[in-house]
């Protein structure tokens, strides 16, 4: 995976988290993984198809997800991680990926994205067929928001 893709996604995540949730994330240490990557509890997957293809997953704890959903909905209290909160978090993942893929398209690559799927469960781990995952932790005021990029 090219470094410019990684930077596009980080830039996009910074912008969207700032815009929709007034968060100021800090980039943590990047890591590369060949094995299934553990989820923080909530993961949103967005499939990328075209000249760049793969899967981008965003992973965060349920607590962080609820705080994030609340911030996205004008501070409305979110006491349960219900379908409405899930839909907010899915939309956020969609925006970050959409924004980054628009930049890729502007650079001349034919790229499209699939709608997001949100996965919860216990001891969840995931892997995308034979593609190395770049793990990018973003530290925010409300907890870790991690990007797991598996693109080729």
């Amino acid at each position: 995976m090219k470094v410019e893709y990684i930077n596009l996604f980080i830039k996009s995540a910074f912008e969207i988290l700032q815009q929709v949730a007034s968060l100021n994330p800090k980039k943590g240490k990047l890591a590369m993984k060949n094995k299934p990557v553990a989820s923080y509890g909530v993961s949103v997957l967005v499939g990328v198809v075209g000249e760049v293809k793969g899967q981008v997953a965003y992973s965060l704890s349920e607590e962080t997800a609820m705080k994030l959903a609340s911030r996205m909905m004008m501070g409305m209290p979110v006491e349960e991680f219900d379908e409405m909160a899930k839909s907010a978090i899915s939309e956020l993942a969609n925006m970050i990926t959409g924004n980054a893929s628009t930049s890729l398209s502007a650079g001349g690559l034919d790229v499209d994205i699939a709608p997001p799927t949100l996965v919860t469960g216990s001891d969840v781990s995931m892997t995308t067929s034979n593609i190395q995952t770049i793990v990018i932790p973003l530290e925010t005021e409300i907890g870790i928001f991690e990007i797991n990029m598996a693109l080729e």
Partner: protein
Amino acid sequence: MDYKGIAVEAIINTAEEMLDRKIKYGESAEMKSPLEVENFAIIVGIAGQVTGQIIFGFKEEVVNSITSHMIGQETLELDDLTLSAVAEFANVLSGHVTIDLVDSGCSKKLGMSPPSIIMGKDLKISTKIQPIQKVRLEIEEYGDMSIYIALKEKKEGEKE
């Protein structure tokens, strides 16, 4: 256009051929998010004029039966080789779905993401697409697998 029916048909035919086993339709139902799926799921994203996901749900024993058949030797645990084989299984099935959808005129062009494998307990999957068509398939000797078709037509110019 009955793209869900086309998708299910393509999956059954391709899986029968790949596994050299008869596959029977089990019950079929329209579901809403969150889907409670098996401990081992594979998600494939679809993008084009038809957009969404195809999700496969398995029990671990069934994954091992499928991969043993594909690799030609018994697999007992979910190691790299097994995961890669079952991902390939989902990849070929989904590939045939996209080919059949394009051939039947549902979409001019369809892209497919590589399969992502999700493992865990109490897995729940949500998507904004509904209803989701769930079909249980009975694979001769191997056991059941579930497929969840979450596809919708995308309107012209609509952004995801």
